[in-house]
């Protein structure tokens, strides 16, 4: 292979003769100097040194453009670039050629920059450590796609075919870094050749260094889009680490005493200035041109005017991301998409007699669940009631996220039986075995769209246990949840308040039932002594509508006033943030809860949406309850009813709890009202109402 050594020069007299002598000693086929207006005799030095000199107008100079021009003028198969202050060390060219021959795909090699004897310790250490990192074992290191794209035309050697394919970008700075990235992206390999060293160090004074960093990072921003962060704390830490490294280097070089102190001070200024001016350089476009020009070592103002003017700066390369493989065959909300795109499955005609038939086929679609889910417990209680009335029920688990993926149908069914009470119905995972029903019942917003896609169905009902859009912040989930009330399901709402809400807000037709109490579990036991110091708090923090932070604040206020025993349950893990000790029960079985309620003084259950089973289960055990004023609780219980209502204010809630702790007459009144309330709430009545709702969904279809 023939070799052309190429050196762009402007006023490079200081090292040019030394450079040319060292290069000539390594016997290249050609040495080409491109001079852009030197006035220090560089042209004469170059010619005397045996180089072919081509002079260009300084206005035409740009690092990328000029090197492309030089490569076009050169004759060699290999193009070895040097800067005017980089003196090849012995063996430089041979090491580059050996690197290129490692693999035919090697397009470029680069070598280390070695410190000159008078180089400052900061630069000497940095150069040595930086280049050593490319090849810790000291052997040539092949680099490919994904590897560090670093490349420097201070000392780089190009296969002509690689340059012809890639070419330097026409940029004012960092054309070499851009080439490195482009070459690797195009499939070329790059080699770090430890033996191809050049003596080179820009050992400027502190101010010049700062200006140099300004130019370098401006160039990086222009070519790669890199934005050096402004991070004062990290910069301080960086400076400390670098100064410590420089001091260690000085010690290794045998430098001590006053010299070490002097270099330490220079090190602080050097590294601190680098952080400041590199960040500034990244943001050069925000500075006035005059300021840019004053800071720039090359006097660049960019834009109109300046020494390197009207340079075509290419946009940074298009960013490419990591390819993420698909995890599922379909999006978890695929049913929603299919309904919106294709519409629901058609319903079968329903004769008027269907609604009056003794036994109905009822398919209930349920979302995924975990132990302690009150919503699923209510669903299964209703299913048991419907089965007792002779209806044929089946449960269909819609689980697009795969929560139950590892469980067989039989295992899912066993969990349903164990956690929510036994049902006769089978449990199907998914709809592969779907076989139709008189009524399909959706039980949560996520189940509505899948239910709409089920065929062989006469009517659709929607068991609405809460206003689910309120579970979400403004979001796509909220929009999808709201959409479900517009889908023509006959709503069976878990309170008159909820039914009125969906009717007034969404125009959805429907009926209501009231949650029942399992009186076999929850009831009074006169033989059980009740404490006068215990608050039971339903603190399920995983459910935001439970306003648990409000409850904890109220309890904190109450504890500030007096010593009370707080027992919290409902969550799977304790809340560690409270400033007072409390007892944590976790998720508790119903019989244990009833025992707790019978012994406690007051219950604290907050609900920001529909009321839940818990207040009335507490009331059935004679335990007065504090809940929030407004919304469903006030609509259901009334201001002076069985529940002590408080404003959504921790002080007001603490006041309400304290009234129950201190005022025996008030306690007695609330407890008696609660017992009376709970006595009228049975699951039989709830199932009756739900059954009527299911029959009505068929009648509505038949009209």
């Amino acid at each position, binding site marked *: 292979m023939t070799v052309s050594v190429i050196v762009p020069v402007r006023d490079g007299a200081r090292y040019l003769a030394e450079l040319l002598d060292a290069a000539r000693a390594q016997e290249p086929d050609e040495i080409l100097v491109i001079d852009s207006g030197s006035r220090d005799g560089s042209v004469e030095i170059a010619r005397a040194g045996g180089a072919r000199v081509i002079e260009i107008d300084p206005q035409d100079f740009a690092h990328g453009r000029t090197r492309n021009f030089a490569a076009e003028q050169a004759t060699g198969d290999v193009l070895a670039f040097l800067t005017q202050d980089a003196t090849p060390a012995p063996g430089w060219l041979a090491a580059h050629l050996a690197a290129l021959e490692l693999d035919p795909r090697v397009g470029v090699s680069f070598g280390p920059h070695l410190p000159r004897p008078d180089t400052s310790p900061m630069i000497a250490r940095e150069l040595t450590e930086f280049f050593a990192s490319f090849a810790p074992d000291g052997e040539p290191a092949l680099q490919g796609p994904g590897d560090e794209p670093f490349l420097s035309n201070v000392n780089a050697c190009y296969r002509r075919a690689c340059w012809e394919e890639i070419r330097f970008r026409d940029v004012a700075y960092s054309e070499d870094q851009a080439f490195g990235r482009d070459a690797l992206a195009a499939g070329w390999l790059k080699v770090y050749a430890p033996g191809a060293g050049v003596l080179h160090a820009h050992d400027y004074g502190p101010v010049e260094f700062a200006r140099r960093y300004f130019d370098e990072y401006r160039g990086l921003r222009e070519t790669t889009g890199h934005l050096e962060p402004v991070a004062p704390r990290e910069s301080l830490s960086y400076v400390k680490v670098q100064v410590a490294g420089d001091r260690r280097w000085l010690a290794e070089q045998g430098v001590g005493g006053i010299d070490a102190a002097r270099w330490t001070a220079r090190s602080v200024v050097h590294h601190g200035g680098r952080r400041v001016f590199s960040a500034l350089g990244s943001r050069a476009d925000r500075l006035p041109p005059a300021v840019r020009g004053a800071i720039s070592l090359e006097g660049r103002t960019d834009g109109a005017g300046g020494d390197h003017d009207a340079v075509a700066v290419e946009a940074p390369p298009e960013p490419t991301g990591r390819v993420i493989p698909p995890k599922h065959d379909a999006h978890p909300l695929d049913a929603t998409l299919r309904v919106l795109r294709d519409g629901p499955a058609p319903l079968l005609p329903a004769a008027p*007699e269907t609604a009056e038939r003794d*036994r109905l086929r009822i398919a209930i679609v349920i979302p995924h669940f975990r132990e302690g889910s009150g919503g699923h417990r209510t669903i299964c209680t209703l299913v048991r009631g419907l089965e007792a009335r002779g209806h044929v029920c089946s449960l269909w688990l819609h689980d697009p996220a795969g929560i139950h993926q590892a469980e067989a149908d*039989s295992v899912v*069914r*066993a969990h349903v039986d164990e956690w929510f009470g036994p049902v*006769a*119905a089978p449990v199907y995972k998914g709809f592969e075995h779907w076989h139709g029903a008189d009524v399909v019942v959706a039980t949560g917003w996520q189940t509505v769209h899948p239910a709409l896609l089920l065929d062989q169905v006469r009517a659709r009902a929607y068991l609405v246990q809460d206003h689910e859009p309120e579970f979400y912040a403004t979001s796509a989930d909220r929009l999808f949840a709201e959409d479900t009330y517009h889908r023509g399901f006959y709503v069976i709402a878990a309170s008159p308040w909820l039914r009125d809400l969906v009717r007034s807000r969404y125009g959805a037709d429907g009926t209501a039932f009231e949650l029942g109490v399992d009186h076999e579990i929850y009831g009074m036991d006169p033989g059980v002594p009740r404490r006068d110091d215990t608050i039971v708090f339903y603190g399920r923090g995983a459910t935001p509508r439970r306003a648990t932070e409000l409850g904890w604040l109220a309890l904190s206020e109450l504890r500030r006033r007096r010593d009370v025993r707080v027992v919290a349950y409902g969550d799977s893990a304790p809340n560690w943030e409270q400033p007072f000790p409390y007892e944590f029960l976790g998720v508790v079985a119903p019989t244990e809860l009833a025992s707790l309620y019978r012994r406690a003084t007051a219950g604290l259950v907050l609900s920001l949406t529909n009321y839940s089973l818990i207040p009335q289960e507490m009331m059935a055990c004679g335990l007065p309850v504090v809940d929030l004023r407004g919304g469903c609780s006030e609509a259901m219980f009334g201001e002076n009813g069985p529940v002590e209502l408080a404003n959504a204010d921790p002080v007001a809630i603490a006041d309400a709890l304290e009234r129950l702790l201190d005022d025996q007459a008030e306690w007695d009144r609330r407890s008696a009202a609660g017992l009376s309330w709970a006595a009228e709430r049975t699951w039989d009545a709830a199932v009756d109402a739900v059954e009527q709702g299911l029959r009505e969904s068929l009648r509505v279809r038949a009209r």
Partner: protein
Amino acid sequence: MSTGADLSTEAQLRARIAELEAELVEQAARAEAAVAAAQRRSYWPDLLQLDFEAIMRHPVLRFAVLVPLKVRGAGRRLRWYWQRARGG
């Protein structure tokens, strides 16, 4: 205007539909009950991920299943004969 015959036909059709729907419900009830029973029976094998078909194909393991069944069957027959012999 519907004639008496039309009304009679309609009533018959409705009755027939009602019969068929009742049959469908009965069939569904039996099917769901069978599926539920199968799910109850297969709980432990599913939980332990036992593949009985693979076990019965295995030349040695199948005997671990068959031998106890045979012994239990023989024991039941013996018990029956003994009770008959005693006049029970």
